[in-house]
């Protein structure tokens, strides 16, 4: 009864609510600053058009501020759940991240192993200017993307699968470099990092089990190592008081067989939960930063957007002075 990654991705999002979903404040900010930039530096001469542009930017900034505030409130108003007893619905989990099953995700362009990454590649030197005329010194985006492979969050009580599709991910690890006339940048969440997730937890539609052989075998071997006497009695064939590589391999082999047997026995009982983006307009947030740091970050983002909105309102009024 092993579930595939595709099955997790295809779980229907049948919650009732807003179809538009939660819009990231960063995305709104990007559009807002674009509008402000166009109005300030563009070739607009009509003050009414300029004022309308500023009012539009102010409205977007207020939306971004409310969005950032909402994210912050969802974070601080949702109590932390333990994986083992988490109720179905909107939850907050904290733990460390691991690969799902045996599926390891290599970082972007041979980067360190990570559970999630987002990247972009920019071509340096030649860019597109006005009227599609190539010019020197421009930046031309070649590729942008993010991984959508599910991974696992583990706390002291159990594990939960995280489906990052559509989630807002804030990571603290970054790699950037330039070579062959291109600029490469990727943000990633390293395997084993502390992780914070808010989103919708569901178990329906996936009576599933996953089997992480490395983790299960590692756990068994660690337990065995604690009882050196037993370990030597069982595997020290030549009785020289230590385990040779061949003897160690036979211990690993037996651990693999035992781990598989234990998994087969437990398999039917292990129902796994999946946390994913809610379908009712609530946000899903994944981060390797501490939740307090994130909450402060969203508070600052909210204040910044209020300041931008005030600036735009006064700029719009100034057009008529």
């Amino acid at each position, binding site marked *: 009864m092993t579930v595939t990654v595709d099955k997790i991705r295809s779980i229907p999002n049948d919650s009732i609510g807003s179809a538009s979903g939660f819009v990231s404040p960063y995305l709104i900010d990007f559009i807002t600053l674009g509008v402000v930039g166009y109005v300030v530096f563009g070739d607009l001469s009509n003050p009414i058009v300029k004022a309308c542009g500023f009012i539009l930017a102010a409205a977007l900034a207020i939306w971004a501020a409310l969005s950032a*505030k909402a994210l912050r409130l969802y974070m*601080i*108003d949702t*109590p932390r759940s333990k994986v083992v*007893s988490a*109720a179905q619905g909107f939850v907050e989990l904290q733990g460390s991240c691991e690969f799902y099953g045996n599926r390891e995700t290599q970082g972007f362009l041979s980067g360190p192993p990570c559970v999630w990454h987002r990247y972009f590649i920019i071509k340096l030197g030649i860019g597109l200017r006005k009227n599609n005329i190539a010019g020197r010194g421009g930046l031309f985006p070649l590729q942008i993307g993010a991984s959508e492979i599910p991974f696992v969050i583990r706390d002291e009580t159990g594990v939960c699968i995280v489906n990052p599709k559509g989630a807002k991910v804030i990571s603290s690890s970054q790699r950037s470099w330039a070579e062959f006339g291109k600029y490469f940048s990727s943000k990633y969440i390293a395997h084993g990092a502390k992780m914070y997730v808010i989103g919708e937890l569901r178990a329906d539609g996936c009576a599933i089990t996953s089997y992480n052989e490395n983790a299960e075998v590692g756990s068994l071997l660690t337990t065995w190592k604690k009882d050196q006497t037993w370990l030597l009695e069982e595997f020290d064939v030549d009785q020289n008081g230590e385990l040779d590589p061949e003897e160690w391999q036979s211990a690993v082999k037996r651990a693999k067989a035992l781990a598989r047997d234990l998994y087969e026995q437990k398999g039917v009982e292990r129902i796994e939960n999946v946390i994913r983006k809610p379908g009712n307009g609530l946000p899903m947030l994944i981060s390797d930063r501490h939740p307090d740091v994130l909450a402060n970050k969203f508070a600052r983002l909210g204040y910044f957007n209020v300041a931008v909105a005030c600036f735009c309102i006064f700029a719009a*009024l100034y057009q008529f002075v």
Partner: protein
Amino acid sequence: MGIFSVVLLVAIVALVGYVITMFNRLVRLKHNVKAAWSNIDVLLKQRHDELPKLVTTCREYMKYEQETLEKVTLARSQVSNARQSGDMAELGVAESLMSNTLGRLFALTENYPELKSNESFMRLQTRISSLENAIADRREYYNDSVNINNIVVEEFPTNIVASKFNFTQAQLFEVNEEDLKDVDIEHLFAA
């Protein structure tokens, strides 16, 4: 319309928006508390349904422990009454009694090897123990929800909106920690 009027209008719109945000937050917190309570209630109901089976199974073997079995039945009805009334203080007391009597019962079963080897008893014991653990976890979650709600209801300036629209503090689900301690089996047998 002068600039002052526009600024005043913007300030009024901002204030109304802020009040709406606070109101919505209070509504969400109130429903968080309700949802957290429902999550406990489901488990209490499940345990309520399992306990008579446990008592019936134990009664067949534990002829001399009728008093303990009756206490379990009594605790069960007390929890049920408190659940229906929604009084958290009463529920806390009833839960303390339930945990205590269940702990005592499971300790006493050590004296009955035939009962311990009964498959039905083992299954019920595992089931009830796991329900107890889940109730404890969800009680913690409920109390966190209540705590967040109560802080927001009490802090300024949300308390003005809260009092205006009758948002009240929720009651914590507190169980006497002394009663949740493991039963001292040796002491029990010595008595």
